[in-house]
């Protein structure tokens, strides 16, 4: 859906962008971070780590991570954490992206 203008208070808000750090050797492949990341940023990799589990890896655009910190909170192994990279200004593009995402047209959301 396209909006004819930006929200009036768009200036007052920003979109945080996170950088995800994964300590692969600690991961036990439980899949909590992959399943519960609200933006679907992670997926299971094909690689094995030293323990023989598949650690998570980032899906295509890493810019989807909004640094909510859920993955680091829900990881039982202290194997993943995020860092704030920058706080981006809101553009029309973002609004469009978010509206399609929450209207469940996004493939990642229909699959769940």
């Amino acid at each position, binding site marked *: 859906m396209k909006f004819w203008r930006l929200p009036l208070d768009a200036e007052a808000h920003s979109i945080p962008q996170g950088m995800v750090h994964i300590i692969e050797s600690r991961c036990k492949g439980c899949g909590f971070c992959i399943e519960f990341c609200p933006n679907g940023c992670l997926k299971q990799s094909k690689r094995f780590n030293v323990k023989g589990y598949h650690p998570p890896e980032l899906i295509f655009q890493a810019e989807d991570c909004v640094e909510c910190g859920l993955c680091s*909170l*829900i990881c039982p192994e202290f194997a993943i954490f995020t860092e704030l990279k920058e706080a981006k200004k809101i553009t029309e593009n973002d609004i469009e992206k978010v509206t399609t995402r929450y209207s469940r047209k996004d493939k990642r959301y229909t699959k769940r």
Partner: protein
Amino acid sequence: MKVRLRDISQFDKEAAETAIQKDHGLHPDDRFLKPGRIPHIWCPGCGLGVVLTTFIEAVRRNQIPIDKCVVVSGIGCTGRVAGYLDMDTYHTTHGRAIPFATGLALANPEMSVTVFSGDGDLFAIGGNHLIHAARRNVNLKVICVNNFNFGMTGGQVAPTTPLEARTSTTPTGNAEPGFNLPYLAHAAGAIYVARWTTFHPRQLVHSISQALNKKGFTFVEAIAPCPTGYGRPNKLGSGLEEMRFYRDMSEIRNGADPKLAEIKLRQRFIVGTFLDSERPDFLENYDKNVVSRVKSKQKVKEKGKAA
């Protein structure tokens, strides 16, 4: 068949030290963890690590200095928390975390004393200690990780195992209903009672921080998946599937009557902050009713002697 044994190599202390040094500090939470203790022994998919992370986050959020923070735990998988946290921690005997912590809290009221233990430890062998600490309103923060069984010893039935649930000692189904822990803590006199599952890490952080700020006996129950002891016999699947189960089955109702918080096998249950109240804690009552009275009596006696 000929068995070939591997050569035994000498333990290289220096190499082990450098490996620890290299690994420690990679994660921001490592500041709160003892070097060389991660990876922990908990099974893949176990919820205990999530509760530990939320506790660390709550301590960080409240900015409690590490030298003012004490964690006491009993025996069990949950009890191992004391070995991982890098602060004053005590790994006590089975069921005796609360009496030990009571002593600490009374001897040094400045300290923030948290009891971090399992359902079997706090409610089976240690049940009596818990209800009396709650009645006295000792300044303790109890975090009870409920995985519905005795995880460490091989998944035996616990006082929290729901009716009909299977465990290694109830292979045909449990004949006893389980405790409703929030109701029990509330009835015994806790001033703060909450229950969340590991699917609710943010709410858990919030509840633990609220509890850390209170003066008195607080009780937070964290329902955690135990794929090894409870998930497997009850066909709940892996830790992840058990998390999904808790997501679908939990209903957030803050302020609800804890009487409704009973957990039945494969049925919906409620989570939330059930109670947040105030009443004088044990030390306050003790000062008012014992210490100050004895002191005033002594003063009268001394006056009498002087006259």
